[in-house]
């Protein structure tokens, strides 16, 4: 053990470096988009913030525990975190709730600072953001936003499997 590491104090809390937000919803994050987001974070020396957006129906309070959605979000976040860390990119994952995906996004960026947003565009009848939601993101995002087109050759349902496979 070096003298430096022997004397090293407790690791400082996040120094407030750049943060790249990758919001996703509906139980999948396209592997192409994930890889691109990781590269963007890598180039910028940024922390990747994968954020799973949960839509909470109006009959529940916004902070109600949503076990079914959480059951989908947790393994996905673990997988995304693993992929980012394997590429040497620090991760600070989030789960956010809202009445719609855009409401959840709004709540997230109202509470935290992000330097870049990487959002997946919809493909076919996928479960990601709709064109209307993407338009909203482009108009309201507080920072530079990149919309990435997922792999159009991947059929619905295969995408999630491919995401998990890519990072396994």
């Amino acid at each position: 053990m070096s003298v430096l590491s022997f004397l090293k104090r407790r690791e400082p809390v996040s120094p407030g470096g750049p943060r790249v937000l990758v919001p996703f919803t509906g139980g999948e994050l396209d592997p192409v988009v994930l890889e691109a987001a990781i590269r963007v974070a890598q180039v910028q020396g940024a922390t990747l913030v994968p954020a799973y957006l949960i839509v909470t129906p109006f009959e529940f309070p916004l902070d109600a525990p949503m076990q079914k959605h959480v059951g989908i979000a947790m393994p996905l976040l673990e997988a995304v975190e693993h992929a980012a860390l394997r590429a040497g990119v620090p991760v600070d994952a989030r789960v956010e709730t809202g009445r719609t995906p855009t409401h959840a996004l709004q709540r997230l960026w109202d509470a935290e600072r992000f330097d870049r947003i990487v959002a997946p565009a919809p493909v076919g009848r996928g479960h990601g953001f709709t064109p209307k939601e993407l338009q909203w993101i482009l108009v309201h995002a507080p920072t530079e936003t990149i919309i990435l087109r997922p792999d159009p050759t991947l059929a619905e349902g295969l995408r999630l499997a491919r995401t998990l496979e890519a990072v396994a």
Partner: protein
Amino acid sequence: MNRGRYRILVGMAAGVGKTFRMLQEGRQARSQERDVVIGYLEPHDRPETASLADGLETVPRLRTAHGGLELQEMDVDAVIARRPQLALVDELAHTNAQGMRNQKRYQDIEEILSSGSDVISTVNVQHLESLNDAIFELTGVRVRETFPDRILDEADEVVLVDLSPEELQARLRAGKVYPKERAEVALQNFFRQDNLAALRELVLREVAEDVEARRQPNSLEPLSKQAVAERILALVEPQPKSQRIMRRAWRSSQRLGAEIDALWVRPRGYAPSTDEATQLAALRRLASILGIHFLEVDGDDLVGAVKRIAGERGSTYVFLGTPDERRRVEILRGSLLSRMVRELPGTDIRVVADRAKREEGTR
């Protein structure tokens, strides 16, 4: 003097039958030779309710003038002086007229209970203070008459008076809740099917939580608590890695069927930086989404604080991140882990690895 027993009948909205049930229970108590009085009744011009009150003694109301109007309130002193075994008091969230000794009716009820009489009272879930924002979000209606959550907690019994939204709407249409002309407006607004379904969900959850809280009273010894169920205590700090600790704890809780508490032991006098405050807020949000109880305690002795909280909560598992203590501290005082193991005998301790460090090691 022994405090009386307090039974609260709670419902999702007006018209589900709370007052009716209160009077039925009053009549039943009287048939069992108990001394029953009506302290206050809101008959809402409902003939069925009024007929059920017939024959039950009613303590005369206190009349008070306000802004040219005559208002009637419960005469709490008269109820106490009457010394009944059981007093029936409607609408505990009601705000009394100005000039009364107590601002709210639940305070009047507390005086009656203190005098030794039992009380049965009624309330709708939308009046619960902690649900005020949720109710506003769900219904668009800001409820002004609220009562503190502790009233439900302190009651001896909380009983749900339930009706399906469809049945309640049918009662409204039949003019059993409000006069027909008012009922139509109500059906278009507060009493819409979606509103009622949401309110019913809320009241069911509230009563279920109350049942759960009563099932595991604080008087249970820690050892008895362990026998009842597994419980996880996740130690967190305002750092990104704590998100992972909470997620890991949640996944384990799914297998164990365990409740989870997350604990941050904040060093005394410690003021979080802006980044740490953001991390804390994110941890609290994740906790609420995952159904985790988030606890914060002040203390400089981390192991001591964990030992105390684990004892109080009946924790059977402790989850923590990889300790990043200074080597000197480790040598002088023993590692955090070994102190945990020593101080928490019989508790499983799990260290959640820092993935970033593993990736560093394999690159």
